[in-house]
């Protein structure tokens, strides 16, 4: 019988007896022996059957599940609790020759709150690659597995530790090297989830601007790495970046901390991610817009969050601004106004923040106006070449189809159709009933908010954008507004020079005073325009027929609103700042931080916006840089 027992693994009768005792049954030796033999046989049978399940699952390793399936197949209860992937340690107990499967107690709380990265969290996917061309040669080694399934080699682990340490460490030079490597390394696909996890740590370092910055740089490097397939990790990255844009960071409590730059940078990054990787996650654009909108429409949020929402929208392109920011502006304006109009000392800090928001909004809407005008021109005139000549044609086109909504932006559109995603928002989404607003209507509404500051922005555009603006505005003027045509542009283009000269008084004298101050326009813009249109239609027509005729006439219309007559002092101040701004390109940030302590100009009356120009100029400084480079439109794809 000894030979038999060596043939298979057997359950000894002693074990059977022990088990029986466990359940309170006393077994005789004979019964135990019989049972033991039968148990052995049934186990062997089940094992043999289970191999079938393994074969059909196309595996080489027999799993506990296979065995359980075999048991179930023969109407036997399956055994639960051994489904773990790892091998179960089988331990002997020396004193009494007992062997058992280790069954440690697990602290569930610890397990639930554990911060180590879960394994195998990546989504199942299929990757194709040409293995053999014409039956010859391995073209490239089989694709590497990009995610957690691949267990990390020691080298990778070391790399990961070094890089994270370098990026989050003290040495700026080391950080730069690490970031650069992260950007171009082709072998770090397996580390992606780890890096994403590290980046998601933004929430825990919200007090440390420096660390946040470093993490954002890490995002940038990952996003720019051409060898990485971000897949659904885009979502995680976006949420980290959004955190930096929108959250009232702990770091922003101290006014000396320049969290504004961080938000700007994060917004830039967001748009970059979206434009380059937005197609990886469906509905991403829509989600981003929703969360930005939520923040913007929440008056309880601090101003820095609002600022983030505005720069975020701006970064996502003018369409986003048009669809979210613009409709929200009237509601938001009241809140902002209250902040800006409060000149108490205790409010100084909040007011300074308010100015930031104001500036950001201004930059955003200006860009909106400009791009909208630009898109109109391109759609109607077919490009900026021969613009002067095309003016008349544009006019004709516009008149033949009055009330035409602006065609979609021809330069580039997010790969996901905006409209479809906006509609995907479902009920309750304010965009459901969104209809495009015509440029003139938009302009005059915005003008009612920003007054002159807006116009100035408008006018300092580079020529190739400015011209279409004018030409596309023109037909509108023909219909509604007594504005001058291309000549208008002439004057506005000269604005920087004028500001540099600080020579404003002659122009102010020259321009005819209007009956409506901007505040009135704000209350009833449509009516005011309608009123004035009848008187000036003929004049504007004539001006359009001979473009660039005289600058004097243009000033009749434009400066009328730009310089509210009663204040002579503030405009002068404005232009000084404007001039300085021209001179100091790309140093906006430093400029701005130094601004914070400056006391608000309390002497100025409320509801007149010109006095806010200095603030605007400073805040918008970095944004100007963007507009100059059209960064959201001409990003490399």
């Amino acid at each position: 019988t000894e030979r038999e027992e060596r043939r298979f693994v057997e359950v000894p009768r002693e074990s059977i007896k022990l088990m029986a005792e466990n359940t309170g049954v006393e077994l005789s030796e004979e019964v135990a022996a019989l049972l033991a033999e039968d148990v052995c046989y049934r186990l062997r049978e089940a094992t043999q059957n289970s191999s079938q399940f393994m074969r059909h699952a196309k595996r080489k390793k027999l799993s506990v599940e296979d065995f359980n399936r075999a048991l179930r197949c023969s109407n036997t209860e399956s055994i639960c609790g051994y489904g773990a992937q790892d091998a179960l340690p089988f331990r002997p107990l020396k004193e009494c020759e007992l062997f058992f499967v280790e069954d440690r107690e697990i602290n569930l709380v610890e397990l639930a709150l554990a911060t180590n990265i879960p394994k195998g969290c990546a989504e199942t996917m299929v990757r194709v690659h040409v293995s053999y061309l014409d039956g010859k040669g391995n073209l490239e080694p089989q694709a590497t597995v990009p995610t957690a399934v691949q267990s990390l080699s020691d080298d990778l682990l070391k790399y990961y530790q070094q890089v994270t340490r370098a990026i989050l460490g003290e040495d700026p030079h080391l950080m730069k090297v690490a970031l650069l490597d992260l950007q171009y390394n082709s072998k770090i696909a397996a580390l992606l989830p780890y890096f994403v996890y590290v980046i998601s740590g933004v929430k825990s370092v919200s007090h440390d601007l420096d660390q946040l910055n470093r993490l954002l740089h890490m995002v940038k490097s990952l996003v720019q790495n051409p060898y990485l397939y971000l897949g659904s990790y885009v979502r995680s990255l976006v949420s980290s970046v959004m955190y930096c844009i929108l959250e009232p960071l702990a770091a922003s409590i101290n006014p000396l901390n320049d969290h504004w730059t961080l938000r700007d940078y994060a917004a830039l990054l967001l748009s970059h991610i979206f434009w380059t990787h937005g197609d990886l996650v469906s509905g991403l654009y829509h989600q981003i817009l929703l969360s930005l909108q939520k923040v913007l429409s929440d008056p309880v949020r601090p101003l820095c969050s609002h600022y983030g929402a505005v720069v975020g929208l701006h970064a996502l392109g003018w369409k986003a601004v048009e669809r979210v920011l613009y409709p929200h502006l009237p509601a938001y304006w009241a809140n902002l106004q209250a902040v800006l109009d409060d000149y108490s000392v205790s409010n100084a800090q909040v007011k300074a923040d308010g100015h930031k928001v104001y500036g950001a909004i201004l930059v955003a809407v200006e860009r909106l106006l400009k791009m909208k005008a630009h898109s109109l021109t391109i759609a109607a005139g077919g490009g900026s070449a021969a613009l002067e000549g095309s003016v008349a044609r544009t006019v004709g086109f516009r008149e033949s189809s009055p009330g035409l909504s602006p065609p979609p932006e021809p330069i580039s559109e997010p790969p996901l159709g905006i409209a479809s995603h906006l509609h995907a928002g479902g009920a309750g989404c304010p965009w459901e009933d969104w209809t495009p607003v015509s440029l003139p209507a938009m302009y005059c509404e915005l003008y009612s908010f920003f007054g002159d500051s807006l116009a100035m922005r408008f006018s300092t555009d580079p020529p190739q954008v400015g011209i279409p603006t004018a030409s596309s505005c023109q037909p509108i003027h023909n219909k509604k507004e007594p504005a001058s045509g291309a000549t208008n542009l002439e004057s506005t283009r000269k604005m920087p020079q004028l500001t540099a000269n600080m020579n404003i008084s002659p122009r102010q004298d020259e321009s005819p005073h209007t009956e409506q101050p901007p505040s009135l326009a704000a209350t009833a813009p449509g009516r005011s325009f309608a009123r004035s249109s009848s008187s000036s239609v003929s004049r504007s027509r004539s001006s359009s027929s001979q473009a660039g005729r005289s600058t004097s006439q243009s000033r009749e219309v434009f400066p009328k609103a730009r310089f509210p007559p009663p204040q002579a002092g503030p405009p002068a101040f404005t232009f000084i700042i404007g001039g300085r701004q021209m001179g100091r390109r790309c140093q906006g940030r430093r400029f701005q931080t130094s601004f914070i302590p400056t006391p608000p100009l309390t002497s100025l009356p409320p509801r007149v916006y010109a006095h806010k120009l200095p603030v605007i100029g400073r805040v918008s400084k970095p944004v100007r840089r963007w507009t100059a480079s059209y960064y959201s439109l001409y990003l490399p794809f």
Partner: protein
Amino acid sequence: MAAVQDGPMELDTEKETKPEILSDGSANLSGNAGSGVLSSSPHAAGAQKPEDQQTLIAVLQFLRRNKLTESVDILKREAGLSDDQENSKATDTGGKGDGDAGDANALLSRVSITSATAPQSAPLPLKSGDDQPDVRVVLSAYSQQGEPPLYKVYYSDLKKFIESVLDCHRAELSQLFYPLFVHMYLELVYNNNESEARAFFDKFSGDQECYYQDDLRVLCGLTKKEHMKGNETLLDFRTSRFVLRISRDSYQLLKRHLQERQNNQIWNIIQEHLYIDIFDGMPRSKSQIDSMSGSLAGEAKREVNKVKVYYGLLKEPEIEVPLDDEDDEAENEEGKPKKKKAKKDSLGSKSKKQDPNAPQQNRIPLPELKDSDKLDKIMYMKESTKRIRLSPENLPSICFYTFLNAYQGLTAVDFTDDSSLLAGGFSDSTVRVWSVTPKKLRKVKSAAELNLIDKESDDVLERIMDEKTASESKVLYGHGGPVYGVSFSPDRNYLLSSSEDGTVRLWSLQTFTCLVGYKGHNYPVWDTQFSPFGYYFVSGGHDRVARLWATDHYQPLRIFAGHLADVTCTRFHPNANYVATGSSDRTVRLWDVLNGNCVRIFTGHKGPIHSLAFSPNGKFLASGATDGRVLLWDIGHGLMIGELKGHTDTIYSLRFSRDGEILASGSMDNTVRLWDAMKAFDDIEMDDFTAATGHIHLYDNSQELLLGSYNSKSTSVIHLHFTRRNLLLAAGMYNSQ
């Protein structure tokens, strides 16, 4: 008995089925699947052949015991049996060489034993309707026919004799060893001679052929009579007769020897449990025998492979192909028609004129071609004009679709014929569908939204799709166990999946929901496949039968019963008139869809068969098994015509190129191998004798036929597919271990 036993099970099934069937709606579900099965089962009918009177008598006994007197009368009348005849036969049956069990009572007592124990034992995989095995179990019960200690003597005596005969006979007679060994061992076990059985096993198990190792492993664990109950493999072995092919000379030699030695014990086993297929002519060589043996029940009888098989292809429907297509290059304008003609005669292309070997066009009713099908046919024809002609000099390119992060385990893959969709079945019960083209997968809009659509518009088919749901992949949830088989319908509107939970599910690829759950197998369903014309599909599973279904019937149309172990893979013949099944009993069977008959049995594999492929012209069949070998079969002659050795692990996928020149095989050993199928088929010398006897001599030319072996890094090849232009697609799961 079987019906009684299965009664409650059936009820359960019906209860579960109800919510499953969506398309059938209120169709009556109360119909007993069992009864339908019985009438359509060819096997049950076969059981009542008049010559098999022993079985008949056993059935009569059974009926009588259950007081089914009317049935007894009817059966007697139909079978033309008189009472006397029956009684005498019964006595004969029982009294055969066994003194103490010489009457019908002994038989009855055995019946009662079996019936009493059966419900406790594990349920037999054979389902209702197939009560024949139970009767045969009775008949195959082992009787004590000699002194247990003498078994060794008998066996070694025979062994000595066979070793002493002439070489030419020795190889043939050696076939006897294995079945005799097993039956003698089982007899010992059955009659509770445990120690003798063990000694017998230890002494002689080493002599058996190595390819019986798996069976021997099962046997050696079995030492008690109780163990035999519920052991399917043994039940198979006892109920079916092991088939041996022996030349007349060798057989005479054996017979003379046994008669001389009065070796009744062995003679009785040969009589009862073996079927010796005697042929006239030269005894076969060892290699010839080895190439054909290995299955659980010996070789196939020669006459079972004599039935005519209509392996030709159906006539292609006449569809006008617009030849003035713009994307035909101008310079090819001249050469094109000629080229096409040349292709018509080639191996793979479907001929316009009626093939003499083709079945009647309407032998199996096929679904009407829809407009969309015609469009697809046109697309197919256009694509096939751009097809690359493969040859040993011009091998296909291989694209590998690697499943990453499939930590739950990939178990099945299928591509659509146009290679636009990819489906994967996983161990976690999910089915995932990917679009492998830039076109994303979209669902149809909800009913409310569909109402708003202008039905008259030209692009209504585009409008019904919901753009919001566009994604690269969709997950189909519904199964309750690993998904072992997936198959797309030819029109790409449906997907079938078979699972461990015993169901086959039909999914819509328009709505990505489950339409029907086909219940019937009750045990894991290992494979399923759509017919090449859609509508029909076949499934095979652990219950050892393959079933033919139509998508609009919730009960199977045919049950193909006969395999002795699990049906592991199922394939439709290109003309949809036949179904091939591979099994764990190491045989491949070909079934006629029209009447459910088994028309071919191919033996020769030494392990469970996991892949099958028909050549595009329908003449040949390739099969791959766990033994790592691919065998090629000529369907018309019912012969093995090739053996392709090279793989070192289970072959999970086989596929012929579109024109049939190349056979690709994918295996667990992480390689794809390409074989020269043309050469393999052309090289066979087929004279009348080999055609008549089926004794073909195969020389090992695997190395010559192997055109290439291509490694993946660590991805076992689960599926292969040739695109319409002959690009080879392979799919598998990356294995990080």
